[in-house]
């Protein structure tokens, strides 16, 4: 069987496991097959014997390293060290936490393993340790990719003390992220049961991801940047920010921070991860596996609201779809979208981001010392409502999530059905996705901006709506034509989705430029609107002229 370098490295610290009651040889075997399987995560059903997927993790590591390079640039500026390190660790914690929640929760909450491993002579400590190390291997890869460049840059500027603190803190941060997530899950697991438990976990994950997105946006606002001269004082709420804890030791030992300011924060940086570790060992581990079993229990789900939802869907599908097949795919897609938790978990954070991001940019207009009324009148004169285009770009790229599903094996159904063309299927699915996820979030973002800017921007919003449709269709046209829910989730984003991002933002830029120019001309918006509507119709007609041969289904 394939050997992994990482496992050989693990052999060096074997004594740690031997001492804590873990059966090391068995844990190693479990990890080995887990790593082999990760390399083979096959996206399509029945795609046997193909080797692929190996490089998706590597590709994403390059992406992270790229981000790390940008973070490293911050090290070169003349900001105070405390500020720089807040950004470095804030970014790191943010990215680790979000990948932990969205990608590795499945490893943490896995119950499939039980039927395979527990009938065999394998003790629970070993299974748990294998899970933990499995996650840790990926997290440390991501950590090194992001944190590597700032480490190197900082080493040149600040010397050895910086490097030592940095490396110790990386270990603390990884532990912090894993243990805190486990403790939170464990708390939820012990309170709830059955289907409800799954729903709660899903909501919790969504809320946490959204919270992370917002928190991350706020880190940069710890400091007031006045004329590029940064002033800071450690205020009480700094104690609530994990990035501040981890940044404090740098200022204390490497920078010129005063002991009275940074000692407290520095102590927290050590105490909390260590405390989380002990809570995890003492309180979480003994109960976690048993509580996990609850995920297998079936509870009742509400029937009444489901019936009402069904009725409403039938009504809307009749309005939106003329074709009968299209209509049934519309309903099928809406139902799957409403029920599939893993999909919601992937989609929701980026949808929430679509609403939050324009607002964050808007808040950036705020200058210290101005009153709220002055602030309001200053943005009223601007064209800041065009920030909604960030929502437009994010929402339209989110369409690609529709191809993923936990139950991707059910995709055989498409082949069995007597469909001569995939067009009604794709149309129905796209309309359902639009109605379910894109439209509500777009409307929500628009309403906020309407409330701020007043009714006069309504024509602009109408234009943005049609530009959203144009963008959505263009992205659909240039990306691979794939069937809804036909492939399994990947741990990391693939190349296509990254390409879609770039294309989306590029085209969005063009649309914004057109919008801006049109805004300066008489009847400009009306003309632009007419063009966009026309474009929508033309592209819609063109894009769905496809046959089964255009569909990328792998071995389906």
């Amino acid at each position, binding site marked *: 069987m394939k050997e992994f370098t990482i496992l050989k490295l693990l052999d060096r610290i074997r004594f740690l496991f031997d001492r804590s009651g873990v059966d090391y040889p068995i844990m190693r075997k479990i990890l080995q097959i887990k790593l082999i399987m990760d390399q083979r995560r096959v996206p399509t059903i029945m795609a*046997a014997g193909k080797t692929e997927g190996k490089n998706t993790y590597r590709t994403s590591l390059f992406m992270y390293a790229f981000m790390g390079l940008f973070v490293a640039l911050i090290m070169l500026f003349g900001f105070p060290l405390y500020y720089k390190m807040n950004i470095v660790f804030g970014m790191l914690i943010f990215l680790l936490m979000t990948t932990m929640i969205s990608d590795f929760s499945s490893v943490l909450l896995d119950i499939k393993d039980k039927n395979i491993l527990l009938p065999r*002579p394998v003790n629970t400590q070993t299974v748990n340790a294998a899970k933990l190390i499995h996650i840790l291997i990926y997290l440390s890869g991501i950590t090194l990719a992001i944190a590597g460049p700032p480490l190197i840059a900082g080493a040149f500027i600040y010397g050895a003390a910086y490097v030592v603190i940095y490396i110790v803190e990386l270990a603390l941060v990884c532990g912090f992220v894993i243990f805190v997530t486990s403790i939170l899950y464990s708390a939820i697991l012990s309170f709830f049961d059955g289907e409800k438990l799954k729903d709660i976990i899903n909501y919790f994950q969504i809320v946490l991801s959204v919270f992370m997105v917002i928190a991350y946006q706020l880190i940069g606002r710890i400091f007031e940047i006045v004329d590029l001269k940064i002033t800071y004082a450690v205020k009480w709420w700094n104690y609530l920010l994990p990035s501040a804890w981890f940044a404090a030791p740098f200022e204390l030992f490497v920078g010129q921070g005063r002991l009275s300011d940074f000692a407290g924060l520095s102590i927290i940086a050590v105490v909390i991860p260590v405390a989380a570790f002990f809570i995890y060992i003492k309180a979480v581990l003994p109960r976690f596996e048993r509580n996990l079993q609850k995920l297998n*229990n079936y509870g009742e789900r509400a029937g009444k609201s489901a019936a009402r939802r069904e009725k409403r869907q039938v009504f809307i599908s009749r309005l939106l779809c003329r074709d009968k097949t299209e209509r049934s795919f519309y309903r099928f897609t809406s139902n799957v979208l409403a029920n599939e938790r893993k999909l919601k978990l992937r989609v929701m954070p980026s949808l929430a981001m679509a609403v939050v991001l324009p607002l964050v940019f808007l808040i950036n207009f705020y200058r210290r010392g101005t009153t709220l009324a002055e602030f309001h009148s200053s943005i009223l004169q601007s064209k800041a409502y065009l920030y909604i285009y960030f929502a437009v770009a994010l929402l339209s790229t989110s369409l690609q999530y529709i191809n993923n599903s936990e139950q991707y094996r059910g995709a055989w159904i498409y082949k069995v059905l007597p469909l001569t063309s995939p067009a009604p299927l794709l149309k129905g699915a796209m309309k359902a996705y639009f109605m379910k996820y894109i439209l509500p979030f777009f409307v929500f973002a628009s309403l906020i901006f309407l409330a701020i800017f007043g009714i006069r921007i309504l024509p602009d919003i109408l234009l943005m709506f049609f530009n959203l449709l144009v963008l959505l269709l263009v992205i659909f046209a240039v990306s691979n034509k794939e069937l809804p829910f036909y492939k399994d989730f990947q741990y990391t984003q693939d190349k296509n989705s990254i390409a879609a991002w770039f294309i989306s933002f590029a085209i969005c830029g063009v649309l914004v430029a057109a919008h801006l120019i049109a805004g300066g001309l008489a009847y400009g918006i009306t003309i632009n609107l007419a063009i966009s509507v026309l474009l929508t119709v033309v592209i819609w007609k063109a894009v769905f002229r496809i046959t089964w041969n255009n569909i990328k289904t792998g071995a389906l």
Partner: protein
Amino acid sequence: MQSTNEPVVSIKDLRMNYGDKEVLKGIDLDIYKGQIIGYIGPNGAGKSTTVKIMLGIVEGYYGSVRVFGEDIKNGNIEYKKRIGYVPETAEVYDSLTAQEYLSFIGGLYGLKPDSIDSKAKKLMKLFDIEEVYQSRISSYSKGMKQKLLIIASLLHNPDILFFDEPLSGLDANSVMVFKEVMTMLASEGKTIFYSSHIMDVVEKISSRIILINGGQIVADGTFAELKEKSREGSLEEIFNQMTGFDRHGAIAQEFIATVKEG
């Protein structure tokens, strides 16, 4: 080694709840060496749950379960080295090849890589699936997967075997081989505990049949004993009678009528 009259598995007043639902309502059962036990009952009767408790997969039960004389609650997992299990739902790591999967499973029992490999290859050949030894399990048919699971459960030459629906997906020839294998294993002193819905197989090879319904044992004995007790001709009829089911004709008629509806 225990004497022949000491049970290898002993279950006392086993109860289990999933939420508010009582799945097992007090099972008492002693299993002896060399028995082939057919564990039958309608869907949802608690068959798989009983097996999963004995294997330590499901926890949180009430009552006592002793395997080889030791209570399995005491956390000692040594007894699992002498147990083989074929699960009802074919759960395998199916992105692995058979070779990788079997060498992993064998490794968990502490077997040597070489001996696992040669043993696995031979068993695959005997089941006529040696040509897929190095293919991914995800490409297997249902029957091939089932054969692989059976092989995986026997690699370490266990003393007790738990087979949950072992015949599902197997072709007629393989069923014959497997039935023969079960009988021979039992004659060597191994204990086989298996559940199935195929009544005539259970009828033919079991030395003891246990019928469970609604979380309780409703019949326990050899086929001859059950037949005498219920005065029915086949195990299928006994099954229907004991589980109080006699509406199959009516349901079938209604079914056909519904299918024909416009």
